[in-house]
């Protein structure tokens, strides 16, 4: 269906150089041709993005405006419901608390992820056997599938897991209810989310730190700067632009928290770890109210889109500054 206009557009692009070729080559013609060639290169990526990104997003919005259940999902023509699904989510008292929990997760993941990432990057800035080993370990953690990562942490944080065993050996009276207490469970899944993002942030920060001219550190040392002084007055200002970009990326990552919740708590105890993405999953794939689930997911997408716009702006600004 969608292949037809794409093919026509591509054919038009293909014709362009043939017409141009019969005229003498002028600088502006060459520029136009180069520009058109770029469009050709962009075409496969644009088509892929349209099919796998834009189309599902439009369908999600479309679904959120209709009454779609297991009975009608595979039937043609969904019944229009307007904004009823959105209203229902809030009226049932589900979307509001889920949004609150999502914000808690975003806060924890962002703070721990950014501070942890920067700290690790500072520690790993210098070359050496240990920093090389730690770097490799971080890449390993970063590359681990979330389901594996989450399952490992579920074992580690259980009553009989490593963390509680150590705490009990250190004198704790009872195991810490990491995954089955209302407050602890939310903090635990947020912590694991932060743990998983730290390696990525550290790698990006490390790359930014390595671009600082060594003479700057020498100058700082001559001025009597301490280790903390180097961090405070040299490194932090030098990675300011990177921090902004990374901050937006980390918030977006935290906003769509799903994997670890699915594996570690399934939203429980009760609904204590139901964030917006997980609530949307439950509504669509456990209650089979696809319209309601789509509406909740649209709310999450809107949050991510706002942050994506901030990200795009910050990237443009950074490019303009450099």
């Amino acid at each position, binding site marked *: *269906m*969608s*292949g037809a206009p*794409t*093919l026509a557009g*591509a*054919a038009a*692009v*293909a014709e362009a*150089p*043939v017409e141009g*070729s*019969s005229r003498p*080559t002028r600088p502006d013609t060459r520029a136009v*041709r180069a520009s058109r*060639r770029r469009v*050709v*290169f962009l*075409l*496969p990526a*644009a*088509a*892929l993005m349209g*099919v*796998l990104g834009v*189309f599902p997003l439009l369908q999600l919005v479309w679904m959120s405006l209709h009454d779609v*259940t*297991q*009975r009608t*999902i*595979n*039937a043609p023509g969904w019944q229009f419901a307007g904004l009823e699904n959105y209203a229902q989510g809030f009226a049932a008292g589900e979307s509001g608390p889920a949004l609150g929990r999502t914000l808690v997760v975003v806060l924890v993941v962002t703070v721990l992820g950014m501070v942890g990432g920067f700290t690790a990057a500072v520690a790993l800035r210098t070359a050496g056997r240990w920093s090389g080993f730690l770097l490799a370990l971080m890449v390993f953690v970063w590359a681990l599938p979330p389901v594996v990562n989450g399952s490992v942490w*579920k074992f580690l944080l*259980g*009553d009989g897991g490593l963390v509680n065993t150590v705490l009990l050996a250190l004198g704790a009276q009872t195991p810490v*209810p990491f*995954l*089955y*207490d*209302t407050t602890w*469970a939310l903090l635990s899944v947020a912590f694991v989310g932060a743990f998983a993002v730290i390696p990525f942030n550290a790698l990006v920060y490390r790359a930014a730190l390595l671009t600082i001219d060594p003479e700057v550190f020498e100058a700082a040392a001559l001025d009597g700067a301490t280790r903390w002084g180097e961090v405070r007055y040299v490194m932090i200002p030098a990675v300011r632009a990177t921090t902004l970009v990374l901050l937006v990326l980390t918030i977006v990552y935290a906003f769509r928290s799903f994997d670890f919740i699915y594996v*570690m*708590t*399934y*939203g*429980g*105890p*009760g*609904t*204590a770890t139901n964030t917006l993405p997980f609530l949307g999953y*439950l509504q*669509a*794939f*456990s*209650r*089979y*109210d696809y319209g309601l689930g789509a509406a909740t997911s649209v709310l999450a997408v809107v949050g991510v889109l706002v942050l994506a716009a901030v990200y795009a702006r910050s990237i443009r600004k950074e490019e303009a500054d450099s």
Partner: protein
Amino acid sequence: MRIHRNDAHTFSARRLATTAAAVAGALALTACSGGGSTGTGGSATGGDGTVTVWHYFTDEQQVRLMEEYKAMFEAQHEGATVENVFVPYDQMNSKLISAAGAGQGPDVVVFNGAEASTLALAGALAPLDEHWDAFADADQFPDSVIHEVDGTMYAAQGYVNLLGLWYNADILAEIGVEPPTTMDELESAMAQAKEAGYQGITLSGLPNSQGEWQAYPWLTDAGFTYEAPDAGALEAGLGRVRGWVEQGWLPQESVNWDQTVPFQQFAAGGFAFAANGNWQQGTAEADAQFEYGVVPLPVGTDGKVYLGGEGQAIGAHSDDPELAWDYLEATYFSTEGQLLAPEIVGSIPSRADAAQDEVVTSNTLLAPFAESIERSGANYPDGVVPAEAVADLQLAMGQAWSAVIGGQRTAADAARGAQATLEGLLG
């Protein structure tokens, strides 16, 4: 035709554009397709003699039973092969429904029987009426294991599963109590077990349909029914189990356990009791290093225990439904196949003739389950729940159950919330 010095360049650009267009077109066409009759990754296989069976079993013995059925069918049907494909429990329905939307899916589905209506409404299951009418042994199956939606049959169960009270006989002997027959006796035994340094009971408190399945006996014991839901009775049932957590008899961690984990905990030897199913018999034999036994769940006269188990059906988009039916007829629905279930897993055959076989009648562990079927057995899901509300209701009740065990909500608060949801769903 004029030869231009830029021709080579132009040709290259044109070829590039054509290639790009072809790639884009192919991608678009791929996205538009999906309604083909063949499947990928374990779905229907183009009628090449392979029966693809989707299941969600992780328990070793249950997986072994699937393998035995595969061997049995392949031995009987030369040239036919069976491919057992694992799909996680909570992804099974969504995968089946989305596959059905794309005109794909497995040949045979082994799924939670309670969710037959969800799958049938979504068009993921093929009607079985024709095969069933022609099936000579159809009269061996009781109505309770036949799943119909709007007058059409979609699935049958080869066996029945239900919950019972497993006990650690060594612990009970040590504390000097008999296996409990009433709720008071159970609570007293748990208290004594705790005093002796053991833990009380394991069960699943997951906030999903497994939680609802586990909660039902304890809630109905307190007088709760779906026919006339009463928030007071619900609060009493939920409050009793929360009390077990507060007394230290039931680990609050059970909110993170599916039904497999609590039995592993019981089999490790530290718990006096486990509210778990007959399908754990194989695991108990393999793992428990102590004497154990089973009694019916000590629910009172009002208490009910769901008669569950997996439904077996043919996928709506099976490319070889005849072979799929042959598989079901030769395994799950045959006497020989049904007798493997009690032997390997401990499930109770659904066929009348198989249920009378010595394999079943001589099994002392199955006797309490059979007694429970007669005394407290209830249809799963309850007949008063509309087909479209089953999944919604199970999640709402599972979440209430989990919220109370985990301390997120008080029993009164959770009961009020669940009651309001039920009123909306049950009308």
